């Protein structure tokens, strides 16, 4: 058993080996065309088994394990590499291996006819390697390295479908947005290093010594400097977890194949931001300003993303904004000190959001690459399994009683009760969540089919993962809520003494659930109920066709009235703000850089004598500068 514990570093190595085999095998044309799935799924399965065996051998107190070996010596700086695993890491490990196992199985069906099948699996393996390495990293520097590698592999996966020009643009946008975050993160790391330069008793930047380092840095930098440093570090998660204002890449990233959306942009990579906050919690917790900023960034993201999701007609975009909103919840939980609740929601969200995305993939696949919900509808008849699992996911995310979202999300809302404004945001957002999720559900699966192709249920290889994911989506929240006599989630995952009251608070939960039910009812009225008026009656009473149409329009008018006066202005405002201001600022920066590049370029006019004039002009200018200074 000790071998299992000592060799946990093998978990990321399995996918790396799979990656190498696929690349070399396909290159030398030894490997058959469709063998990628077996290799990658096998490697992930090995990883999952290893993780579970490790878990069983780890107990009983689940002490964090940290192993480091020196890696790079640069002057007086020694960087080390190793692994660090604690409950949060274990959680991520379980999520990544299990969710990606199912998604990789699903991918076999989804991508079967794609010419880039093997390439896709190779990228998936590379991503898995990077992600698992990130999770197991023993120090901040190592984590940063894999953080970037995750970015690169996600870049490759988003831009996978090069036939769509928008995919390439989305990939570049995602990468650049993430780089802005990484710029902050790296600067933050350098600043942290600067303040704790000679302090580290163990390996530099290791997570085990982070709390001590935070104290030292606070002492050396003073509260203001320390807060700036913490916020710089927070820039990394802001970009990676698609928080405002660096979030615009996530909806665009939906251009990638749907399994990627499920794996990277719902379950794993975007959660890495939350995971980094968890890992750097010792730094954040001793800076109240930073904590407040984190909480508010999360809260605002949750609310704004939810309002935008209302207006979306592309099923994947709606889910993307939903993901943003849920990530906002997690970040908010981190900010208000509900460490365990945030990670709990991370886990439940990983399951149900991955499943929702896979369902949407199944729908898109079944409707022949149609993503517009206005051209769907009534799919319940054609793809019952997908519809049923989607319903499970929808209920789970909206937080209806026994389903998992109820326990995790409402725990966050409950924990935020000490900050009324955030609490209000949380509750309202819960209502919005229910509304937009059921809206997508009704638009997609209820009513009449509005498209032109012949929808069909997906093959077995695709729906089995859906069912497999539906089970934890439904039950895992309840199972770990502490209500069943089982040990609760907080029992395993906690950060020191909990800063806020954790655990279910039924009064709060009732409130938020009533909001959720309100949202559900509204959605039903708007999208579910036209189904009450059956198409047959429309046909038989053809003379009052206009009237019936009028009636139909009546519902729509009602919807429009409510929507116009209640939701849409705000949603539209959010969307406008999103597209104009945020993208505008980003775009303006880019165009400024571009324009100055163009202006500087005109200096290069091709006359060597002009160059020489600049040469001597520069000497003279430097002379003046030097005389001035000296």
């Amino acid at each position, binding site marked *: 058993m000790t071998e299992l514990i000592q060799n946990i570093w093998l978990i990321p190595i399995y996918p790396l080996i799979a990656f190498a085999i696929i690349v070399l095998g396909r290159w030398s044309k030894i490997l058959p065309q469709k063998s990628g799935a077996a290799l990658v799924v096998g490697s992930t399965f090995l990883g999952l088994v290893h993780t579970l065996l490790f878990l069983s051998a780890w107990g009983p107190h689940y002490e964090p394990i940290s192993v480091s070996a020196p890696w790079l010596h640069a002057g007086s700086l020694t960087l080390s590499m190793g692994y660090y695993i604690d409950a949060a890491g274990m959680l991520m490990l379980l999520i990544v291996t299990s969710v990606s196992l199912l998604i990789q199985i699903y991918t076999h069906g989804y991508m079967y006819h794609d010419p880039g099948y093997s390439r896709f699996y190779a990228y998936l393996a590379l991503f898995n390697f990077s992600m698992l390495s990130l999770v197991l990293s023993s120090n901040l520097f190592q984590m940063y390295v894999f953080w970037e590698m995750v970015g690169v592999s996600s870049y490759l996966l988003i831009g996978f479908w090069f036939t769509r020009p928008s995919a390439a643009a989305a990939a570049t946008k995602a990468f650049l947005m993430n780089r802005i975050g990484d710029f902050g993160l790296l600067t933050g790391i350098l600043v942290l290093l600067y303040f704790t330069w000679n302090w580290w008793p163990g390996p530099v930047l290791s997570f085990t010594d982070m709390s001590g380092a935070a104290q030292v840095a606070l002492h050396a930098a003073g509260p203001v400097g320390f807060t700036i440093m913490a916020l710089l570090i927070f820039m990394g998660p802001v970009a990676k977890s698609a928080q405002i204002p660096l979030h615009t890449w996530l909806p665009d990233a939906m251009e990638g194949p749907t399994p990627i959306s499920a794996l990277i942009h719902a379950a794993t990579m975007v959660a890495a931001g939350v995971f980094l906050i968890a890992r750097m919690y010792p730094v954040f917790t001793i800076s109240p300003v930073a904590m407040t900023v984190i909480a508010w960034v999360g809260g605002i993201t949750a609310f704004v993303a939810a309002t935008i999701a209302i207006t979306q007609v592309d099923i994947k975009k709606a889910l993307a904004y939903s993901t943003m909103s849920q990530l906002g919840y997690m970040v908010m939980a981190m900010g208000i000190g509900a460490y365990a609740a945030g990670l709990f929601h991370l886990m439940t969200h990983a399951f149900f959001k991955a499943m929702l995305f896979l369902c949407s993939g199944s729908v898109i696949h079944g409707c022949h690459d149609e993503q517009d919900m206005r051209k769907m509808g009534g799919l319940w008849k054609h793809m019952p399994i997908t519809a049923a699992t989607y319903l499970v996911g929808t209920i789970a995310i909206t937080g209806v009683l026994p389903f998992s979202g109820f326990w995790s999300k409402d725990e966050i809302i409950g924990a935020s009760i000490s900050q009324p404004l955030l609490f209000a945001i949380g509750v309202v957002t819960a209502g919005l969540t229910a509304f937009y999720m059921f809206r997508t559900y009704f638009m997609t699966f209820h009513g009449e089919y509005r498209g032109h192709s012949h929808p069909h249920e997906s093959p077995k290889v695709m729906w089995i993962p859906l069912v497999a994911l539906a089970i934890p989506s439904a039950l895992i929240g309840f199972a770990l809520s502490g209500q069943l006599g089982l040990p609760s989630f907080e029992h395993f995952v906690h950060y020191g003494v909990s800063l806020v009251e954790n655990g279910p608070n039924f009064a709060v939960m009732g409130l938020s659930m009533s909001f959720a039910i309100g949202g559900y009812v509204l959605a039903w009225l708007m999208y579910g109920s036209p189904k009450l008026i059956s198409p047959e009656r429309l046909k038989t009473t053809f003379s009052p066709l206009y009237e019936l149409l009028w009636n139909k329009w009546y519902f729509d008018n009602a919807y429009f009235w409510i929507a116009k006066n209640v939701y849409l202005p705000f949603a539209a405002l959010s969307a406008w703000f999103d597209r104009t201001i945020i993208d505008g600022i980003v775009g303006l920066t880019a165009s400024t850089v571009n324009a100055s590049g163009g202006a500087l370029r005109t200096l290069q006019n091709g006359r060597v004598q002009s160059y020489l004039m600049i040469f001597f002009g520069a*000497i*003279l200018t430097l002379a003046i500068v030097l005389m001035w200074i000296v």
Partner: protein
Amino acid sequence: MENLTLLNQISFWLFAIMMIGGALGVVFHKSIVYSALLLLVTFLSIAGLFVLLNAPFIAAAQILVYGVGLTIVLIFGIMLTGDKPFVDPVGQERPKRYWLIPGVIAFAFMGFLLWSLLSPNYNFTAVNGLFLERVQPSIAETLPGVQAIIADGGVTHIGLLLFSKYLLPFELASVLLLLAMIGAIILSKRQFPEEEAEGEPHVSQDLDGGAMEGKSCCSLNEGNGNLASENFDSEKETLGVH
């Protein structure tokens, strides 16, 4: 002795004026051939200054290398590229900035150098140099360099140094000259035997034939500039890409 000093001073000013005048002529004379001849004047005046500076060997080398070798090479170059286009076209003035900005820069640079090098508070003798003017002639004559100059104009001394202390730069300079020679041959030879098969690549105006006479090239720059720009456009199409 007094007369000798006076003679030195007169020669210095004579050479200095000749040098500056020649240099100005090189820059400002309309004809490039006159420029080359004035360059020769400058070189010879500099050789004179070298003699005044106790460097007869350098003076001789200056006359041989610059005064004879380089000037002839330059005149060859002038002949190979034709004479006429190098008289700036009459009536077609360049924009003012083409001489104004260089003038400003050159003047500013000169001012900067003069100010910083001749500032009275500092001088080159402050550290450890031996400023001969302040050294007694009797002491000066004990210096090895002075003795070498007195003995044979420094030839032996320079030779010994070149083959001992500066042996490596000397050898490297020989490699440099070899490489420069190879390069000059490669660059300026019209056609190598192995290139005969492919022939000259087509360029809009292949002027190799007319280059020596300096005829056909004149049309490009004489008269108005429009013709030149038209030719320029046609050349653009045949640019090699690599």
